[in-house]
C-alpha cells in the first residue's frame, strides 16, 4: 500500500508540476491569472492540508472564522494593499521590510524588522518540515537523516535554479501546481472518505446530528483571538506581500485576487469538516493532521492518498523554497548590501545570487536543526505561533499607511516589545515546552506556551500597539520622517518634487552610476530609457528626473531601500537648492486627469475649476510660457504651439535655453534684460519675418518661477508699415497734383501754338508734327488729369468709361514710341514698329479709357525697349480665359534687380541710370491699371525664358457696342 501511495504521489507531483509549467509557458491572461491565484492560495503552505483539520477538531467553527479572516486581507485589499501598490509604482519594494524601512527610515528599522520577520517565520518553516516528516513517516518510516539531507538538497537545488533565472516566475508556477494538487486532494479525500465511511453525504449529515458533532463544532472558543491573529498575519505573510506588491502584477490581476482567493479558501475549507468527522467516525488512530492521506489509505484509496501526500510534499517544498529566498533577500537588503561597495564587486549579480543561496540555505539548515530538537508540537501549534509572530509586523504596516504620526521610535519599540512578549510567551516554549510562573505576592500563575496561546498572541499584539502609540505620541519626528510618512499615506499620491539634478544628460548619469555600480549601470539606464520610451540623448530636466526615479525604483527592488538610497546619493545626487523647489505641477495635473473620476464632493468641484482654468490658459489667443526656477518650461499653451510649431509634450520639461533658434536667443535676451516688456521683437520664422510682443511677470513668486506672455503683432506691424508707405505715397500724390496743376497752363499754350502751326503751314511734315504735338499734349492732359484723380484717391467716373480696343491702344503706343527723339526718321520708325511683335487679339475690348490704356502700353513698352538690346524683340501677346483678358509684354532684356523687385510700383524707384528715368513710369502704370479695374504684376526672368521680364496685365473683357 505504501509503495502504491508513494508511486502515486510521485506521479501526481510530476503531473502537477508539468501541467503548471506548461500553463506558465503557454502564457495568456487566463493562464497567468490562474497561476497567480493558485500560487497565492498555496502561500498558506501545509496549513490547509494538515493544520486546519486539527484546528477544526480543536476550535470547531472558530477555524472557519480564522480562515475567513485570512482571506479578508484580499477582500479589503483596496484599503490595505492598493495604497502600497500605488506607491510601489514609483518605489519598487522587494519585501515588507523594505516598505517599513522606506516609511520609518534608517538601518535600525531594517535590521529589527528583518530580524523579527525571520524569527516569526521560523515556526512556519518548522510546520512545513513537520508536514514533510509526517508524510515520510507514514510512507517509509525510514532513516530521518537521509530524509533531511535529501530535502535540503532538493530545496537548495530549486532555490539555486530559481535565483539564477527568476524567483518570481519559477516559484510561482511551482506553487500554483501545489495549490492545484491541494484543492483536488482535499475534495477527493473528503469525497472518498465520506462515501466509504458514511455511504453518502446524507448519512454523514444524520451522523453529525446524532453524534452531537453539530453542537461540538459550533463552539466558538478563542474565535476572537484566532480572527485577529489570522487577519493580522495575512497582512505580513511574505508570500502575500511579494506576489501582490513586489512582483508588480497588473491592477486587473490584483482585482482578481479580491474574490478568487477567498473563493479558493472557501473550496479548500468545505472538505475539512467531512474529513474530520470521517476520521472520528472510523476512530482513526492517525493524527488529525495526517487525515488528508491517512483516511483515503484507510478506506483503501491509495491513488487519492497519493494525491494527498503529493499535495503536502509539493506545497511544503514550494513554500520552503519561496520563503527561504524571500527571507534571504531581506537579509541581504537589510544587513549586507547597505554597506557593501558594489562597484568593487566584479560580476555583481552572480555575487548577490550566491549570497542569496547561502543565506537561504542557512535559514533552511537552522530550521531543520530546530525541527530536530523541537518538543512534540503539532503543525497547528507551529502555525498559530508563527502567525502570532507575523502579526507583530502588522501594526507598523497599517500605521505606515493610516497614521502619519506613527514614527520610527514608536515602531521599533512597539515591534521589539511585542516580539519579546511573543518570544517569551509562545516561541521559546515551543523549544522548551510549556512552563509556569507564579506572580510574586499573588496566587496567579502565568502559563507560558500553547496552553495560553490566545492570551499571549493577543497580549503581544496589544503590547506592540500600545508601545507604538505611546512612543509615537510622546516623541517627535524629524523632517525626513514626516516627508516619508506623508508619502505613504493611504490618500496620498506620490508627487515627485521638481528637483534639480547634478547631471544634465543621460550620459553623465550613466557615467556617474558606473562609479557606484560598475557595468550594471549601463543596463539600469537602458532599462529606464526603454520603460520611459526616452532617447539616450535626452537632456530635459523633467525627463532626467523621471529616469532618476526609475533607476531609484529598480535599485530599490534589486538592492533594497538602504543600498538604493546610498547609491543614488553618491551617484545622482540632487542639487543643493532642491529642497526649495516646488512639486512637479505637470505630474500633479496628469495624476488628477487620470483619477478625476474618483473625486467626489468639493474635490470634484475644485477639479472642474482646475480644468476650466486650464482650458482658459490653453485657449488664450496669446502665447503663455510658465517657467520654473532653473528656466524649465512648465507650461506651453496652444498659442505657443501655433507660433513655434513645437509640440507641448516635446517642449514641456525642457530648459528654455534648449529651444531652437530663433526663439532661444530672442527669449533669452529678453529674460536676461531688466525690462519687463519688449515690443516688436522681429524673428525670422521659416524665412518669413514675424513680430512679437514679449512680457514677463514683474513680480516673481517665492520659487522664482514666472510667466512669459508672447503675443504676435505681425499684422499690426505690417499695417503700420503700410500706413507709413501710404502716407508717403499720399504726399507724393499731393506733390504730383500740384505739379500737374502748374503744368496745365503751359500745356494749354503749347496746344494752342500747335494748332496755329497746323493751320499756318502747308508742309506735310510740319502738319504731321503739329498733329503729333496736339496728340501728345492731349495725352499729357490726360496724364495730368489722371495724376489729379490719383492724388484725390478716386477713379474715373463710370459713365466716362467706354469700350476700348486693346489692340488699337497697343498699336498706337507702338507708333508713338516711334516718334521718340532718338529715332525720328521713317526708317527708324519702321524699325521700331518691327522691334515690337504684337499678336494681340484685334477684337478684344475692355471697359476703360483709351488714353490711359495707351499710356500704360507706352510706359511698359518703352521700359521693355530700353532694357532690350538693339536686335531683340518685345512680344505683346494676349490670352483669353472666359471673361478674363491677360496681356503679356515680354522682353529679353537684363531683367529686374532683386533689390528693387518688391518696390517697383513705388514712385521714384528705377533701375535706370540717373537722368535716364524718373522712376515714375511704373508707378503711373500701376495707378492707371488700378483705375481701369485691372491687375498688374511683373516677373523676372520672363515667362518661358531665363532672362528678360514679363509684365502681366489682367482686365475683364467688355462687349463692344
Amino acid at each position, binding site marked *: 500500500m505504501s509503495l502504491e501511495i508513494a508511486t502515486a504521489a510521485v506521479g501526481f507531483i510530476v503531473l502537477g508540476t508539468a501541467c503548471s509549467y506548461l500553463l506558465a509557458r503557454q502564457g495568456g491572461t487566463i493562464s497567468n491569472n490562474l497561476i497567480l491565484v493558485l500560487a497565492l492560495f498555496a502561500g498558506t503552505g501545509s496549513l490547509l492540508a494538515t493544520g486546519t483539520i486539527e484546528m477544526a477538531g480543536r476550535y470547531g*467553527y472558530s477555524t*472557519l472564522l480564522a480562515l475567513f479572516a485570512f482571506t479578508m486581507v484580499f477582500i479589503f485589499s*483596496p484599503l490595505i494593499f492598493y495604497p502600497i501598490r500605488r506607491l510601489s509604482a514609483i518605489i519598487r519594494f522587494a519585501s515588507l521590510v523594505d516598505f517599513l524601512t522606506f516609511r520609518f527610515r534608517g538601518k535600525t528599522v531594517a535590521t529589527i524588522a528583518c530580524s523579527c520577520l525571520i524569527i516569526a517565520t521560523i515556526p512556519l518553516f518548522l510546520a512545513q518540515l513537520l508536514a514533510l516528516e509526517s508524510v515520510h513517516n507514514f510512507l517509509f518510516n525510514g532513516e530521518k537523516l537521509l530524509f533531511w539531507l535529501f530535502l535540503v538538497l532538493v530545496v537548495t537545488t530549486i532555490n539555486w535554479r530559481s535565483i539564477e533565472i527568476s524567483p518570481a516566475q519559477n516559484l510561482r508556477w511551482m506553487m500554483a501546481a501545489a495549490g492545484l494538487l491541494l484543492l483536488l486532494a482535499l475534495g477527493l479525500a473528503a469525497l472518498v472518505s465520506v462515501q466509504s465511511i458514511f455511504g453518502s453525504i446524507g448519512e454523514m449529515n444524520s451522523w453529525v446530528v446524532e453524534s452531537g458533532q453539530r453542537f461540538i463544532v*459550533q463552539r466558538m472558543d478563542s474565535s476572537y483571538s484566532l480572527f485577529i491573529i489570522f487577519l493580522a498575519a495575512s497582512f505580513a505573510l511574505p508570500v502575500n506581500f511579494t506576489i501582490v506588491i513586489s512582483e508588480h502584477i497588473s491592477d*486587473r490581476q490584483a482585482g482578481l485576487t479580491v*474574490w478568487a482567493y*477567498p473563493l479558493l479558501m*472557501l473550496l479548500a*475549507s468545505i472538505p475539512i469538516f467531512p474529513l474530520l468527522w470521517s476520521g472520528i467516525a472510523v476512530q482513526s488512530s492517525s493524527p488529525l493532521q495526517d487525515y488528508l492521506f491517512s483516511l483515503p489509505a484507510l478506506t483503501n484509496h491509495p491513488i487519492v492518498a497519493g494525491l494527498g501526500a503529493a499535495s503536502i510534499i509539493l506545497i511544503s517544498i514550494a513554500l520552503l523554497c519561496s520563503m527561504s529566498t524571500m527571507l534571504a533577500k531581506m537579509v541581504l537588503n537589510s544587513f549586507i548590501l547597505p554597506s557593501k561597495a558594489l562597484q568593487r564587486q566584479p560580476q555583481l549579480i552572480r555575487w548577490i545570487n550566491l549570497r542569496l543561496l547561502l543565506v537561504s540555505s542557512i535559514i533552511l539548515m537552522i530550521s531543520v536543526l530546530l525541527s530536530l530538537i523541537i518538543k512534540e508540537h503539532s503543525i497547528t501549534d507551529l502555525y498559530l505561533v508563527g502567525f502570532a509572530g507575523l502579526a507583530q509586523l502588522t501594526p507598523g504596516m497599517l500605521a505606515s499607511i493610516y497614521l502619519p504620526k506613527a514614527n520610527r521610535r514608536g515602531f521599533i519599540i512597539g515591534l521589539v516589545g511585542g516580539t519579546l512578549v511573543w518570544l517569551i510567551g509562545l516561541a521559546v516554549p515551543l523549544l522548551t515546552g510549556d512552563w509556569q510562573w507564579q506572580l510574586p505576592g499573588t496566587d496567579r500563575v502565568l502559563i507560558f506556551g500553547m496552553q495560553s496561546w490566545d492570551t499571549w498572541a493577543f497580549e503581544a499584539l496589544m503590547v506592540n500597539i500600545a508601545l507604538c502609540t505611546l512612543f509615537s505620541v510622546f516623541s517627535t519626528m524629524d523632517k525626513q520622517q514626516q516627508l516619508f510618512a506623508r508619502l505613504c499615506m493611504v490618500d496620498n499620491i506620490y508627487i515627485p518634487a521638481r528637483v534639480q539634478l547634478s547631471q544634465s544628460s543621460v550620459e553623465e548619469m550613466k557615467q556617474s552610476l558606473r562609479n557606484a555600480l560598475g557595468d550594471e549601470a549601463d543596463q539600469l539606464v537602458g532599462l529606464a530609457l526603454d520603460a520611459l520610451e526616452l532617447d539616450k540623448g535626452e537632456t530635459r530636466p523633467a525627463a532626467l528626473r523621471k529616469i532618476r526615479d526609475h533607476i531609484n525604483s529598480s535599485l530599490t527592488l534589486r538592492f533594497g531601500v538602504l543600498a538604493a538610497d546610498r547609491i543614488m546619493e553618491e551617484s545622482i545626487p540632487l542639487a543643493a537648492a532642491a529642497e526649495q523647489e516646488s512639486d512637479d505641477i505637470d505630474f500633479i495635473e496628469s495624476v488628477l486627469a487620470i483619477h478625476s473620476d474618483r473625486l467626489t464632493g468639493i474635490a470634484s468641484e475644485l477639479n472642474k475649476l482646475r480644468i476650466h482654468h486650464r482650458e482658459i490658459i490653453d485657449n488664450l489667443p496669446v502665447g503663455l510660457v510658465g517657467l520654473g526656477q532653473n528656466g524649465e518650461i512648465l507650461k506651453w499653451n496652444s498659442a505657443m504651439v501655433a507660433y513655434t510649431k513645437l509640440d507641448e509634450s516635446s517642449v514641456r520639461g525642457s530648459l528654455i535655453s534648449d529651444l531652437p533658434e530663433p526663439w532661444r536667443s530672442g527669449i533669452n535676451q529678453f529674460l536676461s534684460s531688466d525690462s519687463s516688456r519688449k515690443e516688436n521683437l522681429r524673428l525670422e520664422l521659416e524665412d518669413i519675418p514675424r513680430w512679437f510682443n514679449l512680457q514677463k511677470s514683474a513680480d516673481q513668486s517665492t520659487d522664482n518661477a514666472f510667466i512669459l506672455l508672447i503675443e504676435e503683432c505681425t499684422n499690426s506691424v505690417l499695417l503700420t508699415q503700410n500706413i507709413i508707405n501710404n502716407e508717403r505715397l499720399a504726399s507724393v500724390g499731393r506733390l504730383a497734383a500740384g505739379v500737374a496743376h502748374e503744368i496745365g497752363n503751359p500745356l494749354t499754350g503749347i496746344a494752342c501754338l500747335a494748332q496755329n502751326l497746323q493751320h499756318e503751314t502747308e508742309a506735310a511734315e510740319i502738319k504731321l508734327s503739329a498733329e503729333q504735338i496736339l496728340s501728345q499734349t492731349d495725352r499729357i492732359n490726360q496724364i495730368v488729369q489722371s495724376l489729379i484723380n490719383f492724388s484725390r484717391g478716386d477713379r474715373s467716373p463710370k459713365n466716362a468709361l467706354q469700350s476700348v480696343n486693346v489692340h488699337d491702344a497697343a498699336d498706337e503706343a507702338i507708333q508713338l514710341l516711334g516718334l521718340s527723339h532718338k529715332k525720328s526718321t521713317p526708317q527708324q520708325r519702321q524699325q521700331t514698329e518691327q522691334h515690337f511683335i504684337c499678336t494681340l487679339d484685334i477684337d478684344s475690348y475692355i471697359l476703360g479709357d483709351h488714353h490711359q490704356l495707351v499710356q500704360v502700353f507706352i510706359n511698359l513698352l518703352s521700359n521693355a525697349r530700353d532694357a532690350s538690346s538693339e536686335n531683340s524683340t518685345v512680344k505683346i501677346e494676349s490670352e483669353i480665359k472666359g471673361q478674363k483678358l491677360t496681356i503679356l509684354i515680354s522682353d529679353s532684356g537684363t531683367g529686374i534687380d532683386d533689390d528693387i523687385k518688391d518696390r517697383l510700383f513705388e514712385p521714384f524707384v528705377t533701375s535706370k541710370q540717373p537722368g535716364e528715368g524718373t522712376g515714375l513710369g511704373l508707378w503711373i502704370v500701376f495707378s492707371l491699371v488700378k483705375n481701369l479695374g485691372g491687375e498688374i504684376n511683373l516677373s523676372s526672368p520672363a515667362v518661358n525664358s531665363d532672362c528678360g521680364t514679363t509684365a502681366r496685365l489682367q482686365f475683364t473683357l467688355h462687349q463692344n457696342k
Partner: protein
Amino acid sequence: MLNYRLVAVLIFLGSVVIPLASKWALEPQGNWFRPFVVWAIVVFAAYILQRHRNTNES
C-alpha cells in the same frame, strides 16, 4: 479624506449584516454547512464589487 460611503457600509455591515449572518449560520438546529453559505455570499459580493470597480476604471 474620509470616505463616507465606505464608513456607512462598514457601520451597516457591523451592526446589521454580521450579527444576523452569524446568528443564522450558528443556529443550533441549522445545517453544518451554513457558515460556508455565508462565506460564499461574501465571495459573490466581492466579485460583484470588483466587477463594478473594473467597469468604472476601464
